[in-house]
Every structure is written in structure tokens, then in C-alpha cells.
């Protein structure tokens, strides 16, 4: 029996909890999902100049992304010396024309070419410098500045993979004026829950009112009008991607005023909204300005365009652990007052010190602890089946789980998941 039971007739959708607890399933996910998907590496704005680099794990493997000095292109390399393995990039970010392995001083340039080997005459047969360049990650492509890599040489191209999610990336980027950048400062935190619980939580409209009561109380206390509520829809975007889009009870830096922003901000925000209408028409401008988007790009990238824009990726070092890395995304050349307002808005809700994220972490750890007790074997994810999906339904999660079951195949079966 598969771990994901999709029964449209009975309008019942269930996921077996071993999908969150089994070490065998976790190992299989690394091979079947993280080695076979397009994974987010970073944003081109993080490395604007030739030689700029960032290093980070992608799908649990150490890589680094560097803008080539010769080509100006974004290169993503496995972070390992081709000689005997040491890391060649040992800083999280910086600028360098060369990457030298400190162990035996083999030196590579920003395009990955091997440039220097001490005492090379000791290699009787000669060294093939061409073969010994840094190894590129099998596939690297970017969309609207978002750089993805895949360890699967045969994977479909990125636009095909992104399917319906492309339009939503466009909405985020075009809503920000067409050009965006990652803001300095990274949230790197971890907690004790299965990574798929964070997938669900990141696009879960149903939990907001109950889990985030203190956040809504804060909004009310500063004069925010919550009467508009959170109404909208959930969409399956294909290939496991999904989105919920819904009316915004809170303010949006582009472009919905709220008391947090201060009276003087009203004029600017009205002007930004008018700009969006002029460029994109009223309908699309409304979607950009007043509608929130929680976008899941399968398997592990979240772009939430809410009271600010956050980009969040994560990886499971174990079945019951997840490492999260998150950033703030903002328009390039944003006016300082607007940038400050955006960052302020971000912090009301988001991040490890925000008024909401810690309570999500508590909820997900609490679920994981609940699973450990056994007794109940299945999670129920049926909400909204049989009606056009609302933003507080669970269709977006079902889209993820269907793709997950498909990619895992026979491995994700009750017989083998223990």
C-alpha cells in the first residue's frame, strides 16, 4: 500500500506517518527527490561582480556559486579539490579570482579551470589540467535571477520543470518592479521535525488564525483592519508546485498601506500602486499589490510574497530534523524609506525572532513528537476535496504529496517504510 492514499471518490486523502519518521524513507528521498529535482542554489543578485561567490550546501552537498571573471556567467561547482578532496571554497561569501586548496595548494580560477599545481614535474605522465578542473554540478539554470542546480544530468530544462510556478515568480518579480535582490542578512535555523511538515506549513492557510493569534492581536493593536479576512484559493501548478493566493489582511510594501507603515507612507504606496496599474493593468496590479502568494516550488523552495517577500529553502539531515535557510527579497534600488518599511514588516511575522515563525516551529516539532507515539498511523489532508479549493484548504499540499509519491514510486510503500 502506498504511503499516500488519494481517494477522490471518498474525498479522502491520507499520508502515512512513516513518511515523516522512517530512516529508510529519508534515505530514499535523498536519492529519489533531492538527487533528481531542480534545487534552489541562490539568487544572481548575491554575486553581482566577477569573482563574487557564495558557498552553501544544496541538497545536503557542499557547492559554491561564483560569477566567472572571464565569462561573467554563474558557475556552480562541487566544493571539493579534484586532487584529494578538501574544500576549495572555505568562506561563506566573498570575492576571489582564484580558489586555492590549502592542503596541497592546487589552484583553480573562477571558471573552474585548474591553473596551478606545485611541483608538477613529479607527475611522470604529466597532468591533464583539462580533466582536473573543478567539477560543475550536472545542470545549472536560472529563472528571473533565481539560480537552480540539479545533480541529474537528464532532468528536463528548468522552465519545463517550473511549469505553472513560472507565472507566480513573474508576479513576485514584476510586482517588485522587474528586478529584485537578496537583502544582506540570513536566517539559518534548524528544528526537530520532518522537512515535509515545513512544506505543508509554508502553504497552510488553515493554521494562521489559530497558531498565529498573537500576531493578529499585534496587528489589531496597531490599528490594522482585519475585516477583509484571508479569503482566496489554492492552485496545483504542476510537477508538485503549488500556490495559495488570498486577500491580505496585513500591509504589503508593494503596495497596500497599513498603520504600521505610518501616515506619511500613504502617498508613496498609492503612487507605487498607480505605477503597477500603468504598467500591468488594473487586474494584474491588484494581484501584485493586494493579493498574498505562498508559493511552493517542489521540492524545497518557498517564495512567500506576504507582508514582505521571503525566500526559504531547506534540507533534511535526518527524518526528524530540518535545516532552514531564509532570506528577504526586495526590489533593486528600493528607496531607503521603502526598504526600511519592508524590513520592518518582514520582522513582525517572519524569522526566528518574529511573532509567528517560532510558533510554527513549535507546531511542527509538536507534530513530529506526536508521530513518535504511534497509535495513529495516518495524517488526514482531505480538507476541501470535492469543492473548488480555497486558500485554507489543503489542495496545495495534496499537489506536493502526489508528486512526492510519484517520484518515490514503489519505495514509498507501507511494506518497506519502517
Amino acid at each position, binding site marked *: 500500500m502506498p504511503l499516500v492514499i488519494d481517494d477522490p471518490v471518498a474525498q479522502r486523502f491520507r499520508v502515512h506517518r512513516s513518511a515523516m519518521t522512517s530512516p529508510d524513507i529519508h534515505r530514499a528521498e535523498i536519492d529519489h527527490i533531492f538527487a533528481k529535482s531542480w534545487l534552489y542554489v541562490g539568487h544572481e543578485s548575491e554575486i553581482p561582480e566577477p569573482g563574487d561567490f557564495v558557498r552553501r550546501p544544496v541538497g545536503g552537498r557542499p557547492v559554491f556559486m561564483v560569477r566567472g571573471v572571464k565569462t561573467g556567467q554563474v558557475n556552480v561547482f562541487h566544493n571539493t579539490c579534484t586532487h584529494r578532496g578538501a574544500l576549495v571554497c572555505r568562506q*561563506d561569501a566573498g570575492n576571489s579570482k582564484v580558489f586555492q586548496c590549502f592542503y596541497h595548494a592546487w589552484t583553480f580560477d573562477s571558471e573552474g579551470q585548474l591553473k596551478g599545481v606545485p611541483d608538477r614535474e613529479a607527475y611522470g605522465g604529466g597532468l591533464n589540467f583539462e580533466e582536473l578542473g573543478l567539477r560543475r554540478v550536472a545542470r545549472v539554470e536560472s529563472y528571473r535571477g533565481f539560480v537552480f542546480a540539479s545533480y541529474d544530468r537528464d532532468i528536463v530544462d528548468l522552465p519545463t520543470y517550473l511549469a505553472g510556478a513560472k507565472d507566480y515568480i513573474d508576479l513576485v518579480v514584476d510586482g517588485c518592479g522587474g528586478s529584485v535582490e537578496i*537583502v*544582506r*542578512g*540570513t*536566517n*539559518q*535555523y*534548524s*528544528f526537530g521535525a520532518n522537512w515535509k511538515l515545513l512544506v505543508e506549513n509554508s502553504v497552510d492557510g488553515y493554521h494562521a488564525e489559530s*497558531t498565529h*493569534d*498573537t500576531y493578529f*492581536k*499585534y496587528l489589531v*493593536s*496597531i490599528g490594522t483592519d482585519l475585516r477583509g479576512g484571508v479569503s482566496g484559493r489554492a492552485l496545483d501548478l504542476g510537477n508538485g508546485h503549488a500556490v495559495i493566493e488570498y486577500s491580505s489582511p496585513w500591509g504589503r510594501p508593494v503596495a497596500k498601506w497599513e498603520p504600521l507603515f505610518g501616515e506619511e507612507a500613504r502617498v508613496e504606496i498609492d503612487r507605487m500602486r498607480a505605477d503597477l496599474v500603468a504598467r500591468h493593468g488594473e487586474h494584474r496590479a491588484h494581484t501584485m499589490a493586494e493579493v498574498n502568494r505562498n508559493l511552493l516550488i517542489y521540492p524545497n523552495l518557498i517564495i512567500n510574497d506576504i507582508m514582505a517577500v521571503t525566500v526559504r529553502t531547506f534540507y533534511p539531515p535526518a527524518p526528524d530534523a530540518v*535545516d532552514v535557510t531564509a*532570506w*528577504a527579497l526586495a526590489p533593486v534600488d528600493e528607496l*531607503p524609506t521603502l*526598504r*526600511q518599511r519592508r*524590513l*520592518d514588516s*518582514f*520582522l*513582525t511575522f517572519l*524569522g*526566528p*525572532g518574529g*511573532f509567528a*515563525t*517560532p*510558533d510554527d*516551529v*513549535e*507546531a511542527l516539532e509538536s507534530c513530529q513528537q506526536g508521530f513518535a507515539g504511534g497509535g495513529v498511523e495516518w495524517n488526514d489532508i482531505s480538507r476541501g476535496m470535492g469543492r473548488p479549493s480555497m486558500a485554507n484548504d489543503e489542495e496545495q499540499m495534496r499537489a506536493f504529496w502526489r508528486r512526492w509519491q510519484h517520484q518515490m514510486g514503489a519505495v514509498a510503500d507501507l511494506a518497506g517504510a519502517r
Partner: protein
Amino acid sequence: MTAAAVTVCRQEVEDFLYAEAALLDSWRLDDWLLMFDEDAKYEMPCNDAPDGDPATDLMLIDDDYTRLAARVARLNSRRAHREYPHSRTNHQVFNVRVDSLGDDVSVTASFTVWRFRAGRSSCYVGRYRYRLRKRDGGLLIVCKRAELDMTDLRDVGDVAVIL
């Protein structure tokens, strides 16, 4: 405010910081909030940008007095789920230096904050930067900034407690 230099000795500052730590450890957050002036700020930069400026950089926390008061109200409620029930904490303050004297007092100190909850222990290590203001014979916090030395929050998960 007078332009005359304010003189505060280190012992007075240390007593003030120890009193603050005691209020935090006993979860008397309403009393703790009274230690802040009404234009005060509470800041915490991201681990990878300890010099972070809230105007241009993403922070972990950037509270003005209104949001700080809301943070206290939240933590006092039973619906701040990450902190209900509350952690047990131990705020340790040391290496106190009163760096400059003027209208306000600038103070740096090292901190270790231990947090224990549900069988789990976490430890926050870093540096406090305070601006204190002399008022009615006592001190008030104008700005409290906690800069973390840990390279990330992987071991501690979040900063739902006040450091």
C-alpha cells in the same frame, strides 16, 4: 537634558544589568519593560551580519518600543506557543565596559543565555551593546542590541526568548 557629562560608575551599570537579568530570568517582563525609555529600541542582527543596520539589512529583531511592548504582551499570553510553557533561562552578564560618557552612557558586555525547555538545552553567546540614559537618579535603556557569536541558529532553533 543638560549638556553636562553624565558620570556613572561601572558598578552602577553592572547592578543595573544584573537587575535586568534577574527580571528576565523570573519572567517579570512587565517590570523589565519599565527599564526602557519610551523611544527605546531592542535589536538583534542576523548571525552572518553582526554589524547589521536595521535600515538596510535583514535583522532577527528590530523592535521599537511599541513592538517591544507587543513582544512582552505576546510572551505573557498563553498563545505564544513556542514559549508556553516558558523556558527556564539564565542570563549571565560579564566583561562589562562602560565605554563612553556623555548625555547617554554606552556600555558593552558579554552574555551567555542558557535556555532550558522540554528536556532540551540551548545556549546563546554574544555581546550586548547598550545605550543607557540617566533619569531621576536611575538608569533607563535607550537601546539594547544583542549581537550573536554563534555562526547560525542551527543549535538553538529560534530567538523566541528575550536575550
